[in-house]
């Protein structure tokens, strides 16, 4: 999973997508939750970003366990 490298010939969106694929190998439900929350939260406020990500990750695990 440590093989992710930023490629100069790719745009940020393409590199970010590659990063996302690497994260999915690490933990797919959490990777999806993190990427979705970050793309949906355009706030510059670190607290708001944190809340969105934490909620999405916790929700992903709850759903995965059928809670």
């Amino acid at each position, binding site marked *: 999973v*440590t093989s992710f490298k*930023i490629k*100069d010939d790719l745009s940020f969106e393409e590199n970010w997508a590659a990063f996302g694929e690497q994260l999915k190998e690490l933990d797919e439900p959490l*990777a999806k939750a993190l990427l979705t929350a970050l793309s949906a939260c355009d706030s510059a406020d670190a607290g708001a*970003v*944190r809340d969105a990500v934490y909620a999405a990750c916790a929700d992903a695990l709850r759903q995965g366990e059928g809670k």
Partner: protein
Amino acid sequence: VSKWCLTRIEIEGFRGINNEGDPFVLDLSCDKVNSISAPNAVGKSSIYEAVCLALRGGVPRLDELHSSEKAAAYYVNRFYNGQQATVRLSLEDLTSGAESTVTVRRGRDGATTVSSVDHADPQALMRSLDREFVLLDYNTLHAFMRDSPLARGRSFSKLLGLAEYSNARSRLRAVSNTQAFNNHFGLNTLTQRIIAAKKGVSEARVAAYKAVAGLCDVKAEDLISDADADRVVLDFIKNIPTLQCIGQATDLASVNFSQCFSAISEAEGGEERKKYVELTQQIAEAEKISVGTLTGVLLRNLVSLAEEYELSLTGTAGVLRQQLLEQSRAVLESDTWVNPQVCPTCEQTAPFPVLDLVTERLAQYAAADAAAAKLKLEWSLVDWTPVQQLEAKVKTADEAPLFAQAVSQMAVRCASAATLSALEPWLETLQARHQAALESCKSNAEALAEKLPSSLVGVTKSVAEAKAIHEKLKDAAVGERKAAELEGERKDAERIKSFLDKATEIFSVAEGAASKARMEAVLPLVQQLFCSIMTDQVVPRLQKDSVGEDLKLVLDRFWTETDVDALPVLSESYKNALAISIFMAAAKLYSGPPRFLLLDDITSSFDGGSQFFPMQVIREYVARPKIPDGLQLIILSHDPLLEKYFIRAAEEGDWQHRRVQGSPKTLLMVADDTGNALRSKLIKMLDAGLTDNVDAGVRQYLECKLLYIIQRVRINVPLDFAMNDNKKMVQNATDTIKQQVALYKQIGTLVLTGPQEAAVSTTIASIIGNFMAHYATGSSGAIGEAGLRATIKAVDDLEDCFKYVDASGQKRFFKALDKKS
């Protein structure tokens, strides 16, 4: 990838540019260096701010002002009658040849619109052009050098086209912050709750096994599980002949204990038996009631924590002040706050960094929060249900339920030390009353037991014991499920944290490596630019490790020394040159869509004669057209000496120089060499009856025309001509013209006719008398329309003094004062 250059800037009603109905138009060349000169307070910076508005949606130097300055009201020109300022940028894509024009309007109410007739998404286009190097002024460069290594490193990443990566890294780092994560998921409390739940399970099980051992003649340590204990007790009571009603029950849960007591009662009969059974049940119920782990010591500890909390509160002053301090800290830690010793709330200057004081104040709040958290944590470790049950059972109707009240208070905030202090004596009272009632029940039960057959008393006791054991085992099972549930929550949180840490690490390593690689790519150009501007005896180096974000500036060579920290030894002009070198090198290699740079007086720290060097180096190594894939430079300057360089460069074909003139009250325009365009505008304004502020335009016309005459007739000027007081340029020019005409007359080579020579003196006298004498003293209001028209005519007449009529009837300038053609 598109590579956009600016081809035209049009401005109306914005900042220092009024131009109502006649927008200021600045045409720019993509294949030349563009320089624009203007005296101070004419509107040069408004051009810079106009592009800033278009690209960034605002002007930071306005938006950062204190709200009481009402900066938003100063976007639209104060003398403009329209309701909105207009900025229009025309751009050309060097890759495709496509052209786009984007219009940005900002109303007096602050509403901003972006539109284009030939681009589908003009806002996205403007965003794509908003790179850190596109709008450069001295303050930006100065801030870059003065920033902390971390802030500089982040700015540098953005310069290298890694802004989105740097922002993403910051966001990831924020979500993996351990303290924030623990606070959000309540990990510390969760851990304590798990410990408490497990302890409760252990205590219930030990008590149950001990009771089984007492009832069934087995050793507690031989019981291998709760099911085993359950089975032992069930077998025991099944073997009691009176309790046939138990039948085929498979565990204690399926035993009907009420039925068992009824069976005993029926077997023995009589009210006394019933009474005895009731008493034994009451005793069993009463013995179940306990205060758990609650002790006087624990209550005193809680009182002590409440007192600590109340003491810590004395150092604070409410939530509003805390919010104010947090906002202040955010401002002070931001890149935009320039002076760390100025308070962002009161704007007073302190003799120390204000952040230190704000941090200290916030620490008092943090201490109060910590004290509250400690109290709440200790409180949460106690199971308050038993003592509340005891309280409900024992207290009289007119007594307050102190424990219930304390629990309610702690659910919303911290209870006071006084409230908690009352609990210990109240607990002692409750326990004493409960014990007395229990003793009374036991005494009555013993008295009855003496009258009843002993064997059935034992059976009744056994059933009551079995029921109590069943309850304890049930408590242990419930506690175990709760502990498992909490463990699951903790494992989930640990899985999330581990994932976020890993994700942040992976991205940080990648971003750091990309940033370092790009840094190494720009370094040779940075060194080349810097050494060319200053000296090759001082060689800078950019230092950044592959994971961290800090950017350090060091010197590989500092005259005879090596490996020296740059910032402590470099002078302001050297720092300025280094910043210019870094920004230019990064822009050249990693500019992306914008291929233009708007530079507003970036060489302010250089002395007059040295500003030439950075300009020349940028021109040679960075700018189009000498560097075919270089950048379109648009240089704004108010410096008259630098303008001399611009004028000379413009004669070499790769440079376009413009001078702008005008005033914020009326109009700004690009001057032509002859001044004729300005003259037409001035006459038009006078014809329209507009005399207000025309005097400033006439002064500029005078200056422009006199310099034009000096240039055309090649009149020699003193060596310090350009360095003399800029405000006295008209006086300097007329003095020079008069002296040179007199000199050539004296040596007998003057080509001016006698009337022309005489008219030089009279027209200059008219200019001085009608205009400069009033203007120079600030009483230009006294000039009036007639005086202004007379001054313009005097200038025209003065120009004619240096012309002759050729064979075709055209007026032509003499070649020199001593040469007709």
